[in-house]
């Protein structure tokens, strides 16, 4: 025939190799891990102590707040929806937790139960509105977050009353075998998340819904129930994140959770879970969370000013997001 094309100058082989589906696919799946590795290498070369297990675990513990919340949001985002009410949940449940604990070890169990219950309730409401009423998820969870913060203010009247119980604080200050309990908490929640997403019908359904809502519906997947459950999981994870925040700080967390929703979002997206849904997973999110945590530690270690930290975070999100999106587009 005519014009069989193919410019054969330069590096056709490498390009062909890079465009190979397997390479693209794995690059996408593991790219964030490579980024994490690269950051650690940079960190290690700058500060030898950086790569010590103690310090790395400290970073994991730091990241656990965003991390735990991100696990739940990942499930929501696999279905092609979003949850930005995380900060509202963290703030409200934070007040509830210390309010109930009131510095008394006896109250830990009811406090934790109440916190989880509130997270669950918020998740169920979000999920109900989104799954049964078909409300646009971004805007509704945005409004939900704002309302929850209002409720938190109303509940407290602006005061934080109560304290975390000593045993609670001590538990999170504990490092059994050198591993901070917060890191263990993160690992546990991530592990459960991984199991839920990979090994349960619920997890499988998340992908089916995100992959093609219509076909999932027509194949008898209980769409609404699954979406409601995903939001419930996100609510519970956010509530646990709030406990982690109190554990980390050792004091009432007050309004320090504000703005966390976007950190969570950034971590999930860096981990390869797209807005369109049907892709990604918990492992990627864990990598995304750690990458952001290591990056933000690095910029402090490098002595960058606050402003540069912001710019770097933004640039990472833009760069990784664009690269990921471009690789998906090539596939089409």
């Amino acid at each position, binding site marked *: 025939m005519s014009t069989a094309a193919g410019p054969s100058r330069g590096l056709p082989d490498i390009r062909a190799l890079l465009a190979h589906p397997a390479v693209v696919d794995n690059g996408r799946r593991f790219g964030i891990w490579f980024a994490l590795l690269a950051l650690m290498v940079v960190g290690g070369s700058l500060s030898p102590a950086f790569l010590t297990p103690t310090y790395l675990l400290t970073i994991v513990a730091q990241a656990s707040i965003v991390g735990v919340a991100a696990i739940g949001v990942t499930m929501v985002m696999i279905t092609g929806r979003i949850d930005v009410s995380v900060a509202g949940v963290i703030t409200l449940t934070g007040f509830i937790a210390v309010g109930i604990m009131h510095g008394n070890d006896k109250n830990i169990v009811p406090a934790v139960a109440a916190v989880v219950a509130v997270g669950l309730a918020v998740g169920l409401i979000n999920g109900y509105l989104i799954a049964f009423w078909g409300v646009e998820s971004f805007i509704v969870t945005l409004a939900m977050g704002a309302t929850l913060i209002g409720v938190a203010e109303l509940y407290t009247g602006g005061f934080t009353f109560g304290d975390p119980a000593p045993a609670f604080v001590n538990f999170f200050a504990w490092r059994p075998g050198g591993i901070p309990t917060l890191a263990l908490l993160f690992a546990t929640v991530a592990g459960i998340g991984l199991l839920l997403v990979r*090994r*349960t019908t619920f997890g499988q359904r998340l992908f089916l819904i995100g992959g093609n809502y219509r076909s999932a519906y*027509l194949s*008898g997947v209980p769409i609404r129930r699954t979406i409601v459950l995903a939001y419930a999981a996100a609510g519970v994870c956010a509530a646990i994140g709030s406990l982690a925040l109190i554990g980390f700080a050792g004091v009432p967390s007050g309004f320090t959770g504000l703005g966390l929703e976007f950190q969570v979002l950034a971590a999930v997206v860096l981990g390869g879970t797209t807005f369109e849904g049907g892709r990604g997973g918990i492992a990627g999110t864990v990598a995304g969370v750690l990458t952001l945590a290591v990056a933000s530690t690095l910029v402090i270690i490098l002595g960058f000013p606050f402003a540069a930290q912001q710019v770097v975070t933004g640039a990472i999100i833009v760069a990784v997001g664009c690269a990921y999106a471009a690789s998906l587009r090539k596939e089409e």
Partner: protein
Amino acid sequence: MEEAAHDDQIEASGPPFLRVIGVRKSFDGVHALHGVDLDCLEGEVHALVGENGAGKSTLIHVMTGVHRPDSGSILIRGAERHFRQPSEAEQAGISAVYQELSLIDDLDVAENILLHREPRRWGPLLNRNRLYDDCRALLKDLEIDVDVRAPVRSLSIARRQLVELARALSRSSSLVIMDEPTASLTIAEQEHLFTLLERLRKRRIAVLYVSHRLEEIFRIADRVTVLRDGAKVRTMRVSDTSKAELVELMVGRSLVHELYPQRKPLPAPSPGAKPALEVVSMNSPGRLQDVSLKVWPGEIVGLAGLIGSGRSSLLHSIFGADRDSRGSVLIAGREIRVKSPRQAIAAGMAMICEDRKLEGLAINLTNFANISVTFLNSRLGIFHVGKARSRAREAASRVALKARLVDPTRLLSGGNQQKVVLAKWIATKPSVLLCDEPTRGIDVGAKAEIYRFLRGLADEGVAVLFASSDLPEVLGLADRILVMSEGCLAGEFPDAQTATEDQIMFAAAGVEESDRKSEPA
């Protein structure tokens, strides 16, 4: 190839308006076109025929810049052109009515017809008065009766098709491409279209006309090109060929019935027997009117009709996927509540949807995920991957899926994708199988396999109700044929083997038996 093209040319007055040479195009490893040649002469109606999935629409997309060919070239009046966008093809004088409607629902009729060519004032300002006046004049000239200010969202499929037609004809193009323009038109509307085509011919405009209805081609076309499996089979003058020859060229075998499995006469249902599926008085506002039907175990019933006649709506309603519909559904004589596909599945129904990518598959997931979707209902919620995998493997092997379970479905050919859909449904062991265009966009080999498979299921006692726009398929596969028109059942052919395409067409296009006599043959 060159010679072939010369042979078929009617007049050799300069280069043809458009010539396509050796065009290839593949999607994710599916070769939609491999080396197609075609030319369109001024003042000529050139028909393009081929089975579902032969590559007709893909060829058109390449000609209009929607897709870029992998290789091959397009010549306009002898000069090679590379269209990167539809707008470039449009500037070169090519306009098209695409098979899938390409209107913008949120704009009104006039805005759609003149989209991107609006009359302007002082640069970018929309001249609304002229927009509506021009459109009104245009529609009047074309004798199409649609309100220019009506939002497209509110129009029926047939009206949208007419608007689409008006849009293509409003461009002063040298080549008008029409991809199955009559698929949703009534007989009267079709006739009208043919007079419009006559006008185009007189104005020495080239027309490329795609249709499944061979009679149409013999009425209006000068030449016809047959595509099969993405390759050109032959181009010839219409006057030099016959319907039988075209069919043979399209299907690629002389004996059509080889494609379709043998039908065994069904035993008459015993007095106490219950139909596998019974639908009583199904209604859906704006879509269905009082449809009742029965399908017996082991029977394959074909649903024929024009596009938009309500076949898909009916299947969706039966399957519980249309919340607005009212009516009863009985499975094996027991009335069931179907308010969602979930309930329908639980009652033993399965449904193969019309558009695989939109409704049937999550193409970015693996075959395993897509097949296992229907049996994810283990009690504890724990997903026994091993068990599920063996079940999926079993289903896949039953449909002879030629792909691994771990492959992303996106990488499969259309036929194999359809087998994935089949596999997920047979894994539920349904007693009633609903199929909407079960062989759309897949190659002949895979089609034959699917026909055999459906027949096999029927022989096992499954009741099959399938909708299809491919009349030979309906005639060849079904035991009994129901025809739909405008949301109602418009006819029944109890024995498919004795029905003819013409009879079905007339019933589908909404012409009463009495009118038919007066229609030109």
